[in-house]
């Protein structure tokens, strides 16, 4: 396929997804329960994953995911479609996580982020590729744990940008829409967040 053909194909795919999304949203607005169940099923994994990275606790993340989808259910009529549904749900998730962090901070719980609890749960979730040698798998797992802990030591703003970019794979303009920030601000914050992560990991990764 030539470059032009690929571009057309991609545009068709994007427009198809947008049309499907629009249809789903419309059905949800009319109170179609199976359509909303479908919407939740399509996005629950993404929401829980983002919340785990931002909060550092899987149970809290699942609990928060319920709140996120309830908010989606209540406010879907106000969704104007100016951004994608996914970006809109990301935005709700980040805002809910930020609110929950503030709630914790007011109750001094942010000092007790369950890093140690995260370790075994995440460890059990890790699946090293079958082609990877056992020692390499262990090393990767340990590094993943360190990275997750380092992530939780960053500020919420830096953490959210880093997770949206590196874990969720959003582009800078998508992150800008999600967080309601100018794209330039997103890029500069992303650079600082990456440097911050590197700084936190310096004693460990720097020696590698």
């Amino acid at each position: 396929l030539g470059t032009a053909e690929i571009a057309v194909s991609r545009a068709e795919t994007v427009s198809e997804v947008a049309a499907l999304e629009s249809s789903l949203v419309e059905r949800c607005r009319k109170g179609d329960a199976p359509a909303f169940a479908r919407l939740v099923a399509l996005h629950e994994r993404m929401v829980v994953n983002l919340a785990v990275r931002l909060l550092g606790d899987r149970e809290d993340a699942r609990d928060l995911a319920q709140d996120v989808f309830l908010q989606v259910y209540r406010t879907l009529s106000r969704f104007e479609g100016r951004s994608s549904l996914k970006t809109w749900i990301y935005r709700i998730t980040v805002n809910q996580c930020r609110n929950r962090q503030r709630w914790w901070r007011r109750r001094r719980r942010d000092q007790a982020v369950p890093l140690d609890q995260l370790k075994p749960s995440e460890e059990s979730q890790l699946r090293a590729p079958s082609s990877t040698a056992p020692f390499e798998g262990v090393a990767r797992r340990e590094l993943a744990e360190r990275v997750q802990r380092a992530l939780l030591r960053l500020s919420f703003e830096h953490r959210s940008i880093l997770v949206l970019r590196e874990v969720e794979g959003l582009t800078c303009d998508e992150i800008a829409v999600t967080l309601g920030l100018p794209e330039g601000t997103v890029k500069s914050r992303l650079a600082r967040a990456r440097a911050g992560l590197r700084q936190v990991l310096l004693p460990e990764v720097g020696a590698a």
Partner: protein
Amino acid sequence: MNCAIVRSRFSAFIDGDVGAEERRALGAHLRGCAVCATELSALETALSALHELPHADAGNVAAAVRDRIELERRGPGLQLLFRPAWKARPLLGQSLVQGALVFTMMLSVVFSLGRPWRGVDPVDATLSRWETRLPPSGTEGNPLFPSAGVSVPQVRARGQAPEPFLSPEGEGSVFLETVVARDGSVSAVTLIEGDLQEARALADALRLERFEPSRVGGRPVAVSLYRLFSRTEVRAGRS
């Protein structure tokens, strides 16, 4: 291009967000500076590890959300009772009627406890009917019986047993009830057991008797006396 500037551009470099000329300059610096190259490599390793973080299991979020939406749609607690009738559940009306009936029954039981029995007992009703028919107690029509509170009437003038009762041969007995009136006379004689002819003669004799009337609390009352008259034949034996 010094190390600080190079490191500040790492993020843009990784994203491919640098121009061709800047890219060449950065590449040239990295080839000549092992520290910056190591630094970039470490950053890429960290970001790679971040990218490969495992996805968390979503659990049963969809079901929990569905339940919470259903709960929200129904409305909690008292809101269920106070919402408009057309939104009420089909069984709500029946439940309320049944609840009201049970509540009424409980109230009835609570209020009836501790109240005296106002129903008419059949035995008491019969007695009260008899009491209304009978003359006042202690009068000749409804005499009392001698007891701890009712003295026995004392005889002032005893009558003689009549000849007809004493003359026949053989043994016999007559059981009679006599009513001693409030004035001390015998107002009635009733045969309970015995020969009627003999009883008549005895009754005529008994009606002549006079008594000191019985008294209750100093007031004369009529009393009933049961009396047994027996005749025993006594024969002289031959010696």
